[in-house]
């Protein structure tokens, strides 16, 4: 039934949680104190390279009647859009670069290259998702209202076909899912919205999406059709595929952040009187990384370091790798799990969970207290002697050991 008491689940005392918060605050302070010219140069060069790539892709599509040029242009443009949305847009809007005091690279002024409006994203993502991470009924990113990603959500008949179908559609049209999220279509249909607020949001979304649609599906196709090497249709198709490439990739990276096995879900009771330390703890337990090299890190907007990103959403992305070393050491010290794995394995796990949860609970083996995608402190009711330091080894016996122990009991 998902975690209802984070410290109890984590086998930590109040003092432990407080100390953990102090140690994480110290990491933040070190990074803030050392931000400087090197970091500023990194984001400026990333932006310059992305814009060059974007222009290159568009220019290649002036020859998009030729199959090779079509593919080259499409993939280049897709990659440019991925970088713009993830390593630049997402991170700039989190305020990771606000310290530079540059009005052109600032959370309050960045508008990104996708159909959703930045303003809406700052609400649904920066606020609702990052503050209430993985809390059922608060964080709409848990299933986006259409996919059953945890058995804490009640099974409904449409999940039977809808889970895999909607997951596929969401992946392909991710920018539209993101863009429409703040409009709360479900509430509009049920007449439970504030009409004035809805109209304002619809206009904001309409203006943004309209410009994006016109650019990719009218203006650029028309421009390249002036070239003898391209037709209106060839460029239009290329732009559509580039957008889909970006959508599928962004969706995969984001799903790897919160839905692979081991990323915990929480109930609303957790957040009542939640301290800073408990908030940190919930962020760590609710997020998952994936293993990465520099290329994968860059292309995922450094969201391969999802745990670090959720702990410090506004620290510069190029520093997450060094933060990760210190966070991992803290996880070892407090014997907390640090969920990570190869990208494809993590992504496959999200699909496996979603496929499994198409079925009603009676076909599922595990309960919501001890399942791969969700657990609760109740899984430890029969466990004793944890949350203390092992007198024999001097190591703390905490959550990680406790989970392994309980898992060992499971009949195979």
């Amino acid at each position, binding site marked *: 039934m998902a975690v209802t008491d984070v410290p109890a689940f984590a086998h930590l005392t109040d003092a432990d949680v407080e100390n953990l918060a102090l140690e994480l605050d110290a990491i933040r302070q070190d990074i803030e104190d050392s*931000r400087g010219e090197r970091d*500023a*140069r990194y984001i400026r060069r990333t932006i310059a390279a992305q814009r060059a790539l974007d222009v290159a892709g568009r220019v290649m599509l002036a020859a998009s009647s030729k199959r090779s040029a079509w593919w080259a242009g499409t993939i280049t443009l897709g990659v440019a859009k991925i970088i713009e949305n993830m390593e630049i847009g997402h991170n700039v809007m989190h305020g990771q670069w606000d310290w530079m005091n540059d009005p052109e690279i600032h959370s309050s002024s*960045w508008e990104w*290259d996708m159909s959703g409006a930045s303003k809406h994203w700052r609400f649904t993502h920066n606020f609702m998702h990052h*503050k209430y991470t993985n809390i059922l009924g608060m964080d709409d990113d848990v299933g986006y209202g259409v996919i059953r990603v945890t058995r804490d959500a009640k099974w409904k008949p449409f999940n039977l076909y809808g889970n895999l179908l909607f997951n596929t559609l969401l992946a392909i049209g991710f920018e539209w899912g993101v863009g429409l999220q703040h409009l709360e279509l479900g509430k509009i249909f049920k007449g439970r919205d504030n009409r004035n*607020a809805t109209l304002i949001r619809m206009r904001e979304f309409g203006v943004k999406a309209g*410009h994006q649609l016109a650019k990719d599906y009218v203006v650029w196709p028309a421009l390249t059709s002036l070239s003898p090497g391209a037709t209106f249709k060839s460029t239009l198709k290329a732009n559509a595929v580039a957008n889909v490439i970006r959508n599928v990739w962004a969706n995969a990276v984001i799903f790897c952040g919160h839905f692979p096995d081991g990323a915990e879900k929480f109930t609303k009771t957790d957040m009542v009187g939640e301290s800073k330390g408990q908030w940190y703890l919930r962020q760590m337990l609710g997020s998952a990384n994936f293993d990465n090299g520099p290329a994968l890190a860059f292309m995922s907007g450094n969201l391969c370091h999802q745990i670090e990103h959720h702990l410090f959403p*506004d620290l510069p992305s190029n520093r997450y790798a060094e933060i990760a070393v210190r966070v991992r050491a803290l996880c070892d010290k407090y014997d907390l799990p640090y969920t990570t794995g190869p990208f494809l394995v993590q992504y496959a796990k999200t699909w496996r969970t979603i496929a499994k949860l198409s079925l009603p609970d009676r076909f599922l083996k595990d309960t919501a207290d001890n399942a791969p995608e969700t657990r609760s402190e109740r899984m430890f009711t029969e466990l004793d002697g944890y949350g203390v330091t092992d007198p024999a080894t001097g190591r703390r016996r905490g959550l990680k050991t406790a989970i392994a122990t309980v898992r060992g009991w499971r009949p195979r």
Partner: protein
Amino acid sequence: MAKNSIKVSANVADTVRPTIAGADRRPGWHVLRRIVGQVTTPLLPDDYLKLANPLWSARELRGRVVEVRRETSDSATLVIKPGWGFSFDYQPGQYVGIGVLIDGRWRWRSYSLTSTPEASTTGARTISITVKAMPEGFLSTHLVDGLRPGTVVRLAAPQGNFVMPEPAPATVLFVTAGSGITPVMSMLRTLVRRDQITDIVHIHSAPTESDVMFGPELATLHDEHPGYRLLVRSTRTEGRLDLSQIGDVVPDWRERQAWACGPEGMLNDAERVWTAAGVVENLHLERFAVSRAAPHGAGGTVTFERSGKEIAVDGATPLMDAGERVGIQMPFGCRMGICQSCVVGLVDGHVRDLRTGVEHDPGTRIQTCVSAASGDCVLDV
């Protein structure tokens, strides 16, 4: 708080749209920019062009430093070529904001222009400022000693009321001290160009002769124009100028239009003397006083510019709470400093980040949920 009520009451700050400098002066170019903008949306054409040349953008005023010229041992003149969107129709005596990149951060200060707008009509499309390195001012020291020609700087449009009208008054008195001579230098150069040096008395104070900025130029001016009389006072040997005795030096000072610029004490003296003589309307003042953050934890009066409301708060109250207390619909989100939904402009004064204690300068954008007043401040809400 229930999710439903949060979503209905959501009040996220609007995304700040880029402003185009000089759009009204060049409507043709602006129409072109908007058409090409359909292709580059959500960016502007300028966002791509500035990668080729930093000056090819009117989204933010920029300039390139073309020359750094020593004036005295601790001052230098920066000659700057502004980029797109800069208007050369400034008035002599106005100041310009300049943003310099130091350790990855843009830092802003204002300095009087020392160039004359008249020069731009004859082809010199540059402006100049003259900076004195202040012992405690690390930005001014950087500008004097650390800036290389070729550096790109940000600019804010010229402004200020301390200006020389056109045509100039028949009789003029300048009272300057130290770097307070800079706005007057722009006026003098402009008057020379306009051939309006009719009857000017200029009293300038500096520690020694060698500390006088623009010394040779002023001397030449004095020699070539009988209408310009320069009186330099070396305060280290002669002591400070006593403005209450100014009649001994300039008997007709009451009849002259006077411009005074220098240290706070001198300006206060001038104000008192001119007021006592009943001719304060003849006196024009420019104060360079740098607003400084109050000592840690001091709080202050917060002014919300758009509504004009004010509230006095302590140094621990988040500005968001302060605004809500006087009934302002503050943009808000997480209320814990992570979501950037509440970011607004800090128009004036300083604020302190409650998490880290970092001070934010005027002109920056700040998170109201984790910032408190550090002295009096003005917010763009």
